């Protein structure tokens, strides 16, 4: 520094402090030692105070305040005042702060001891722990250094000086930083930061503040917040096919191809070709009249319309007719009258069982104790026990009947899988969606119960003679003629016979339900000649180091998270249906409420961050002062020179 002392002397004179006998240790080395010492003092203090959850925010602010006041006290002595407000102190302090900041990005912050140990080994991780460098920005040492810096800023501001644009700027810039730190400290001590979790329709009058030791405190809001509704706005989906190359652990995107828009040659360069693109893919079975398919048994079909919904009935050669249930009544299609008669005869001979097991839409009549083969060779199922009004007896902890009425029919079944494993489960007629499955168990079983015979139809549509046969307990009770296009009743429902087809043909059609990309599917021919279907979330690896992904081309899919809330005071709404979204918090009663969280699996949930920050305006004032000060200090002298030159010119 010695070579520059002349220049420095000039600057000091400009600041209004005259040079003089200086006995303060004015070296940068001393400044570094001082800063290091203060940091270590903070470390020692923290290791004495530190509990399981670290130190409190209050202790952090107090450490900063101690640093600040220490400097202020030292500033009573003139040599110290001059040293601490000098460049010899300022430059090392700036570099030390920068150094700590860099450390805070190089060392993993707020991770467990185990992770530190893995990352840095035993020696280094002990050092990091010991100096509290694993949460550096909240450590007492860092706070004390910041306080020291703030104190030095205070001494700079308090310095006597001749005022001009530059010195005014200097006061504002340095003073602004003190305000920012002071405001942040006020916020840390007297502010509140917590969260509110609500489901639609729920309300709360308190916020949850996590404590340091994992305890949770509830603090009153002073008003009631109700979540009226929560929604997620999405961008119009826009899927592209991405071709990725694997290189070690990393993936490199080679190509992004927008189906329907990009030219096919883009893909051809990678040996790929699109053979089909459906923005909203669905497979649909269409039933249509087939041409003459010759003699023998053929497929017959009837279309029934029920209030705008269409249902198909089939009579398939070689298969038992499957009933369709309408309003609790079962309807069958049998094409030939003679076959319908034989069917009725067989019903009369077969004892009726009230139990019906349903596997993947296929109905299996079953009697307790009798093994029934599962379709698809997946093993066998057997009803072990039956309860017509199932209840768990609280005393015996055994299943029992609650009453004599069939109010809650249930069966316990045993399943012998094809592989030989046995499993048991309970099925309930009133809860068909409860399949009693264990994890990884794919078999979907449900249970139906009808005292009169669960598998017996209530009506047969006889295609050949255009008749509807009504049955009662398996016996023919009435016949009525039906016309194609005409109506008939089953139970309490009016149905329309929309079509009768024989021979009929079933055909699977692949189509797009619309042009919006709701359920996109892209069919791609690979270099090997094989064709694959690519869907979102299902990457296709087609060679050792290449894979395809169908992903939203524009990355982000969520446009906004929007909560509509109402603020109530004393039970009365004072602010109704206010929108809270990201970047647009709601302020009420001293709190700011921020949209902060959502759960994809819980669509009515919304999470809020709630903040009360009494230091807010002090910080903002500090920001404004600092910015204005920096501008004045940097460009002020230039403006002043220019003005002087102009005035001189005019004179």
């Amino acid at each position: 520094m010695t070579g520059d002392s002349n220049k420095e002397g000039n600057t000091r004179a400009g600041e209004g402090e005259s040079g003089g006998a200086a006995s303060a240790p004015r070296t940068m080395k001393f400044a570094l030692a001082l800063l290091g010492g203060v940091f270590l003092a903070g470390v020692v203090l923290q290791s004495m105070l530190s509990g399981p959850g670290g130190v409190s925010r209050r202790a952090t602010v107090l450490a900063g305040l101690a640093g600040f006041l220490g400097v202020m006290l030292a500033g009573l002595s003139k040599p110290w005042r001059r040293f601490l407000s000098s460049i010899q102190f300022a430059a090392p302090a700036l570099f030390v702060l920068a150094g700590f900041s860099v450390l805070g990005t190089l060392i993993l912050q707020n991770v467990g001891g185990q992770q530190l140990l893995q990352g840095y080994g035993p020696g280094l991780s002990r050092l990091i722990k010991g100096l509290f460098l694993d949460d550096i920005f909240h450590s007492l040492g860092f706070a004390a250094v910041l306080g020291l810096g703030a104190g030095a800023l205070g001494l700079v501001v308090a310095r006597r000086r001749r005022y001009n644009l530059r010195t005014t700027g200097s006061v504002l810039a340095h003073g602004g930083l003190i305000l920012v730190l002071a405001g942040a400290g006020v916020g840390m001590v007297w502010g509140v930061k917590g969260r509110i979790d609500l489901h639609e329709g729920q309300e709360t009058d308190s916020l949850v503040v996590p404590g340091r030791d994992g305890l949770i405190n509830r603090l009153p809001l002073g008003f009631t917040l109700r979540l009226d509704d929560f929604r997620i706005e999405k961008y119009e989906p826009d899927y592209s096919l991405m071709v990725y190359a694997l290189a070690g652990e990393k993936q490199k995107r080679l190509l992004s191809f927008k189906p329907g828009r990009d030219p096919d040659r883009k893909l051809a360069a990678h040996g790929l070709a699109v053979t089909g693109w459906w923005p909203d893919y669905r497979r649909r079975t269409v039933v249509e009249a087939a041409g003459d398919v010759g003699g023998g048994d053929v497929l017959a079909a009837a279309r029934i319309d029920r209030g705008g919904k269409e249902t198909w009935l089939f009579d398939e050669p070689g298969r038992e007719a499957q009933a369709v249930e309408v309003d609790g009544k079962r309807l069958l299609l049998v094409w030939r009258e003679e076959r319908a008669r034989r069917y009725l005869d067989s019903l009369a001979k077969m004892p009726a069982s009230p139990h019906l097991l349903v596997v993947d839409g296929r109905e299996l009549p079953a009697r307790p104790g009798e093994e029934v083969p599962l379709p698809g060779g997946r093993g066998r199922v057997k009803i072990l026990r039956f309860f017509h009004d199932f209840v768990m007896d609280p005393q015996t902890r055994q299943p029992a009947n609650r009453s004599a009425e069939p109010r809650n029919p249930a069966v316990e079944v045993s399943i012998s899988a094809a592989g030989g494993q046995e499993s048991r489960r309970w099925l309930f007629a009133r809860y068909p969606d409860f399949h009693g499955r264990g994890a990884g168990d794919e078999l979907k079983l449900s249970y139906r119960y009808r005292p009169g015979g669960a598998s017996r139809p209530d009506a047969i549509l006889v295609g050949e003679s255009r008749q509807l046969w009504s049955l009662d307990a398996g016996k023919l009770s009435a016949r009525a003629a039906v016309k194609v296009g005409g109506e008939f009743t089953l139970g309490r429902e009016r149905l329309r016979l929309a079509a009768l087809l024989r021979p009929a043909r079933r055909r699977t059609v692949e189509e797009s339900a619309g042009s919006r990309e709701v359920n996109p599917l892209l069919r791609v021919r690979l270099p090997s000649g094989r064709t694959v279907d690519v869907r979102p979330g299902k990457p296709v690896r087609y060679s050792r180091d290449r894979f395809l992904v169908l992903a939203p081309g524009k990355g982000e899919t969520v446009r906004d998270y929007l909560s509509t809330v109402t603020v109530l005071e004393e039970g009365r709404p004072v602010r109704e249906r206010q929108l809270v979204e990201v970047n647009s918090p709601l302020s009420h009663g001293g709190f700011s409420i921020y949209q902060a969280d959502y759960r994809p699996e819980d669509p009515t949930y919304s999470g809020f961050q709630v903040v009360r920050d009494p230091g807010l305006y002090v910080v903002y004032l500090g920001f404004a002062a600092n910015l204005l000060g920096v501008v004045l200090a940097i460009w002020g002298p230039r403006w002043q020179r220019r003005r002087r030159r102009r005035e001189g010119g005019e004179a």
Partner: protein
Amino acid sequence: MSHLAEALTLVSVALYGLAALLYALMWLGNSRPLRLGAPLALGGGLLVNLAQLLSRWLEADQPPFKTLYESLVLLAACIGIVYLVIELVYRARILGLPAMLGAAGAMLYAFSRHDKEIVNLPPALQSGWFVPHVVVYFFGYAALFVAFCAAVLYLIRPRPIRIRREDLIPGEKIDLEKLLDGSVRFGFVLLTFGLLVGAVWAKAAWGDYWVWDPKETWSLVTWLVFAAYLHLHYLGGWRGQRLAVLVVVGFAAVMFTYLGMNLLPTAEQSAHVYQ
């Protein structure tokens, strides 16, 4: 990304490159056609660059500052504008060559990027603060890049010449140190503004001014380094080589803040990292 945008990128690379060539020729012999031609080529490149930025803004219907590709296009335009202003204010063309190489380099890097598609803005970036925060920062980065060029030129100057009144371009008397200092001061004001705008925005979006996100922390580091520069220069009387070294260090910190965040172990949770 349309073919038009790709073509625009290459045209601006070519024009910036041409400008760099003309500025380089000035080092050999200063002539009137060169003095006219170089800024013209620069201006042409800048116009094409800005047209690309604007067309993307219109096409995407959102500010095009989300991906690294988009930020590089913005950076190239900022370098072009800042350099042009400096040439006009200081009447110096000495930094024309490195500045134009920087702008062309940024555009070439952009051209090589794989993230050229328009991506949707996440909710946090849909804010009135987004544009001022990014644009101010990139003008600041551009100014500091120009300062860095001056510092490097200062450090590697071919012969021991006086600090003041360089005449690397024949007939052009300029003060390299004054140029360097002017650029740093301009850059520092913008860094301060960008930092404060970012803090105000974070407060409005999340309720915290500052969360020690790695990029936040590194932007503080760059600010502290350049604050140290200002103190050492004006109060400490630092001049010459060590000041130039400090600017090189500061600009390295800027570049690390801009491009190096992926390298940090703490970057996983950052809101700022380019993919």
